[in-house]
């Protein structure tokens, strides 16, 4: 693998020198040796797709991502909508301040008026005045297993979403397009559930200690060995919570004097872990290899800020699939850069493990690369395995070090036994070691569902972000009122969706995020797609300005087309 990588690097170098026009000069001037730096080319103004891979020799299959640009009139109207809502927000705040209307937000008591203020009113302006008005789209209570279909508790509000009441009724069989259930392991029947039941009878539900003290069960050891075998690494370690895996382990690995290069759109847990570690953080543009290479070169050439000493470690932090964009990391190029500039790579496969790749082994499997190239492979069990928790995999020395020095290993309660058993059973199913073809069937079903869903949405004329193979499908809504309207209209048609707005996304790019699952049958997807199309017409969401292939004109004969 290293040989082929080197040869690719050499080929890349040679190609670049000839394309840049910089010939080897005889008098020893410094040549431009960068791998991926390109001269500025004219880009088609339609797409924000400036990350076209120029090194397609590193990719075995075509890497197609699209982030269609926001139409100008949509952006203008979105800003106008936010402006109007801001004015009304000020009006309502004024009324609340002068007690003309009842204030539901936390306020200080009259006796504390002269103290230092406890609640900073303006920070919650957005929450009070926009989020509260459409709050019924989030935190919907679920009362069944979140599989392909789910039951929701019906609730009503009498004071415009400040308080909710349960009517006592249940909305049954809502098609679930929001749960991270990529391989359909969120189920209460089947091999996983039975095995978890057996284990609960043996060990109980709680552990009552941390891993360091008395909480290390044999089931944890078995699970960690299985995870290591699944990923193809020497050793792995599991934690009780995925968020805590990132935020507690990055501080154990990095410290002052180290450099973290993190992607623009990394998850909050990675950002929190990076900040807690105390190292210098530099951000590169999302999935942009030229930006990353520039940062690496600057870091190596200039060193630490004032002293210019070399950095102790450089860590590149990327995710496998970015859940808000649906984009997949350009792993071959990142690994080529990492080897060239001798940095370390931390890959967070929260959404991609189990969901990508022909064998379900994640984004490394998807690109056909060697898992030994990634120094720290992190992932979660929440999404594809139907359990909870996270893991870190890598070399044996790394994992042994983490066992002693990670906060999460030493102080957090260890994983509950039925959850660990769920992981073991589901992983064995995916690997095919349980003797059935269930794992392979589910993987195939997921990729078929993904392709079908994305293709149909694209044909309908919606703006969809992300890579063609990613099961996370963001559909752009843009306007603030459409966020609330979309969620409510979809629920009326018995489909549960997740809508996202600011601050999880940029202010004008609010979206609805669909998570395709292997548990969805073709009929369910068709029902969902019909409803999405209907709501898209009702709300006028079909913004895409791409050229579509001409549809079959069965409904309109050729003769009528050519008549006057």
């Amino acid at each position, binding site marked *: 693998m290293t040989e082929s990588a080197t040869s690719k690097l050499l080929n890349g170098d040679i190609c670049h020198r000839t394309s840049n026009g910089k010939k080897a000069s005889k008098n020893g001037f410094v040549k431009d040796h960068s791998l991926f730096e390109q001269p500025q080319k004219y880009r088609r103004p339609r797409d924000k797709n400036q990350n076209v891979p120029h090194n397609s020799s590193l990719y075995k299959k075509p890497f197609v991502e699209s982030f269609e640009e926001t139409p100008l009139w949509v952006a203008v109207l979105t800003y*106008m*909508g936010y402006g*109007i809502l801001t004015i*009304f927000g000020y009006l309502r705040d004024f009324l609340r301040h002068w007690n003309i209307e009842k204030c539901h937000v936390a306020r200080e008591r009259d006796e504390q008026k002269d103290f230092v203020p406890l609640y900073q009113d303006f920070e919650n302006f957005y929450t009070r005045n926009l989020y509260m008005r459409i709050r019924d789209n989030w935190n919907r209570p679920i009362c069944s297993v979140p599989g392909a279909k789910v039951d929701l508790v019906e609730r009503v509000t009498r004071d415009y979403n400040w308080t909710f009441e349960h009517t006592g009724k249940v909305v049954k069989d809502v098609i679930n397009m929001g749960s991270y259930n990529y391989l359909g392991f969120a189920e209460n029947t089947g091999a996983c559930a039975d095995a978890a039941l057996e284990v609960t009878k043996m060990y109980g539900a709680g552990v009552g200690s941390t891993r360091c003290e008395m909480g290390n069960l044999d089931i944890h050891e078995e699970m960690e060995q299985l995870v290591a075998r699944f990923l193809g690494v020497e050793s792995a370690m599991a934690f009780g919570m995925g968020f805590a895996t990132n935020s507690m382990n990055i501080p154990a690995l990095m410290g002052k004097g180290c450099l973290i290069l993190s992607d623009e759109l990394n998850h909050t847990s990675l950002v929190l872990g990076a900040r807690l570690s105390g190292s210098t953080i530099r951000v590169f543009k999302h999935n942009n290899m030229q930006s990353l290479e520039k940062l690496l070169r600057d870091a190596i050439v200039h060193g630490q800020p004032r002293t210019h000493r070399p950095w102790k470690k450089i860590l590149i932090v990327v995710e496998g699939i970015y859940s808000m964009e649906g984009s997949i990391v350009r792993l071959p190029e990142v690994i080529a850069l990492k080897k060239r500039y001798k940095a370390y790579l931390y890959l967070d496969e929260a959404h991609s493990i189990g969901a990508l790749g022909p064998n379900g082994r994640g984004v490394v499997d998807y690109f056909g690369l060697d898992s030994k190239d990634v120094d720290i492979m992190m992932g979660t069990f929440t999404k594809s395995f139907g359990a909870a928790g996270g893991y870190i995999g890598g070399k044996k020395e790394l994992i042994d070090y983490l066992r002693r020095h990670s906060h999460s290993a030493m102080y957090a309660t260890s994983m509950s036994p039925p959850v660990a058993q769920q992981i073991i059973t589901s992983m064995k199913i995916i690997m095919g070691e349980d003797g059935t073809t269930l794992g392979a069937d589910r993987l195939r079903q997921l990729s078929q569902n993904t392709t079908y869903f994305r293709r149909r949405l694209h044909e309908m004329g919606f703006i969809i972000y992300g890579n063609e193979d990613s099961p996370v499908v963001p559909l752009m809504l843009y306007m603030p009122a459409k966020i609330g309207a979309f969620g409510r209209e979809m629920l009326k048609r018995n489909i549960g969706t997740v809508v996202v707005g600011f601050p999880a996304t940029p202010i004008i790019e609010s979206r609805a995020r669909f998570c395709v699952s292997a548990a969805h049958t073709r009929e369910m997807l068709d029902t969902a797609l019909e409803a999405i199309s209907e709501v898209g017409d*009702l709300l006028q969401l079909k913004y895409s300005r791409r*050229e579509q292939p001409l549809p*079959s004109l069965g409904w309109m004969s*050729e003769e009528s087309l050519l008549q*006057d």
Partner: protein
Amino acid sequence: MAGTEVRPSQRLPPCLLCKDCFLFLCVNKHRPMHRSSRTLHLRDLRARMNFKNLREYLAWLYYQYLLITGIYVLEPWEKSIFNSILFSAIAMVVYTSYVFVPIHVRLALEFFLGIFGGQLESTMALMT
């Protein structure tokens, strides 16, 4: 799909589908259509909702206005305030234009006719 390709050189009658669609959906109004714009139009037509009567259509237009301005999320009394302010602003614009536009147009016409009329007179004087 052989019969369905439309070559750009083939002149189509202007917006042959206009009589079927509402004006606001008509993206390319009266130009000969190239393939890309025709597919857009076809998709708009396919995407068209079925309105049984004018009332339903007007209700849908009002819904679009609520969504685009963001008023949809507000409480009813806030909606009324915004609608009344907007309506009175538009009414004032209409009234002002009704009163003043004819006067301004007449003055402008007199001004320009004065210039060109004077030019014509002076050239006539030179020629004779």
